[in-house]
């Protein structure tokens, strides 16, 4: 029996009069790579922001690990095990690459203000664990040698890998990747695919929004297609590619009818 890590039921989001996500029922099976695709403006990023808690749904609900997320803010969802990356990267440019990843360990560590101020052993021990773990994730994405670098001094491909390391450092059950392939060259895309598979093999469920069809078709075990906020198809990559509605959505109605 398959177990669902993420489920949305009748998820609906409107901004003023504009419907961005229209009654989407999504089922994400644990331990798989699921890809959400669709033309520009299909509501993919809005869907991500709803799952991550940046927006609250107008109606409908989201279940994570069988429990409704309700109105939990993003930082609580991170603590529950939902990690994400952003389309526009959003690295912290006021710290090193390693420190960026260390922030990922925030909700996996406890020590605060007073322990730090008094330099209690607890602070020292936790800090050591945090930096060891961060280094582990930095090595996992292959950026170990750039630990002391400012993230903005790295090329875009490596910045994207760094955001994945930061997200992995939150030790998530579910990783949401928002267009990880955008702006990468063929070689970088290749290693990105390998990394995503490795993450899946660590037992982390991956959901990615992606424009690059080659990347999606190569790694996605399940594909969900959105168009104008609605789910129009889902299935394996090859099933979806043959779907008439999908072809219509991508190529336009007339061509598909012919």
């Amino acid at each position, binding site marked *: 029996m398959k177990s669902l890590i993420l489920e949305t039921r009748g998820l609906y989001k409107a901004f003023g009069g504009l419907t961005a996500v229209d009654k989407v029922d999504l089922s994400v099976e644990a331990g798989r790579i699921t890809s959400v695709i669709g033309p520009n403006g299909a509501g993919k990023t809005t869907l991500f922001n709803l799952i991550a808690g940046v927006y609250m749904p107008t109606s409908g609900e989201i279940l994570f690990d069988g429990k409704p997320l309700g109105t939990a803010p993003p*930082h609580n969802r991170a603590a529950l095990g939902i*990690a994400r990356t952003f389309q526009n990267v959003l690295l912290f440019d*006021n710290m090193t690459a390693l420190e960026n990843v260390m922030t990922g360990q925030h909700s996996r560590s406890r*020590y605060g203000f007073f322990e*730090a101020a008094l330099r209690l052993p607890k602070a020292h021990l936790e800090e050591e664990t945090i930096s060891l773990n961060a280094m582990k994730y930095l090595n996992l994405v292959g950026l170990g040698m750039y630990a002391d670098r400012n993230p903005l001094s790295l090329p875009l491909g490596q910045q994207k890998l760094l955001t994945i390391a930061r997200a992995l450092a939150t030790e998530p059950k579910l990783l949401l990747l928002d267009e990880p392939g955008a702006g990468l060259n063929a070689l970088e895309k290749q290693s990105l695919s390998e990394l995503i598979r490795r993450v899946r093999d660590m037992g982390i469920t991956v959901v990615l929004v992606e424009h690059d069809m080659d990347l999606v078709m190569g790694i996605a075990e399940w594909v969900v297609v959105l168009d104008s906020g609605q789910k129009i198809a889902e299935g394996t990559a090859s099933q979806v590619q043959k779907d008439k509605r999908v072809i219509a959505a991508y190529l336009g109605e007339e061509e598909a009818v012919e």
Partner: protein
Amino acid sequence: MLAKASDKWVWIVAGLLLVLLILIPFKWFLGPYTNLMIFIAIYTMVTLGLCLLMGYSGQVSLGQAAFFGIGAYFSAILSKTYGVNPWLAMLLGATATGAFAYVIGIPIFRLRGNYLAMATLGLGIIIYILFRQLGQYTGGPDGMAGIPYLSVGGFAFNTAFRRYFLIWGFCLASLLVSQRIVNSRTGRALRAIHGSEPAAESVGISVSFYKVKIFVLSAVLSSLAGSLYVHHLRFVSPQSFDFLASVVIVVMAAIGGLASIWGAIFGAAAIRILGDEILPRFENLSLLKSWDLDYLNIIVYGLLLIVVMVFMPQGLFVGMRDAFERWRLKHAQREAVT
């Protein structure tokens, strides 16, 4: 990389500065400047609070003088009017200021950027007016005199020499604690908020919680400085906490370097030395005869701020450190060539 190579030098320089700091108040050295140095220590603590708030977490406050004043008046009123032990009064003042900052911080930090600046500006002005108008407690615009000294057992801090060590002790302890916080999990959370709020939230950092938390810390530091201020001067009046006082604190923080803990000393020292020692010497220039010295100060502070922001946007401390590193590198290269 550079920081590691110069680690040894940092310790040597820090050690020399500490020895200098200890020797300053002795009569045969820089004794006459003891009072000036005490004010530098007090303003360093206030500036430090603002550096943590502005430089690390990227939040503006144009009302820091309010917290400085609340601490000062708490200590003055409790210890003089009600005869409470000055240390207890200081503790109560810091606690009350922290609680006040917490309560006010929750709504205020829903605002960002310019709106936050306006709200904190308003807060500062309201508190200043309260100091003036609650005359029956605060002594109104004339202020209060005859505030008792701090003392431990039978040892009273009744000379500037003694207070120098007490107040610099507080100041250095605040700097050390802040340094540790900045390099900790909390400090990373604050810097993350400065870097990108959505990204900070995405890794589990509660942005609103940390903003309020650092606001409370900055308020408590200011409050402690305020208490030390009144027990040093033994006098308090609202003018020390008006809008210009808040602006001067911002100038100190900006000049010292917003994102550097130790820069707070530089900022506070630069402005106090300028205001207390250098500018008064120009008072008798015929051109400035009819001027109010306060206006002259503000003009000079403003110019200084512009110059520093243009040439050393990271502040004097970081600017000078970088200049030193560049000089050292150039020197090392020249040696390598020859």
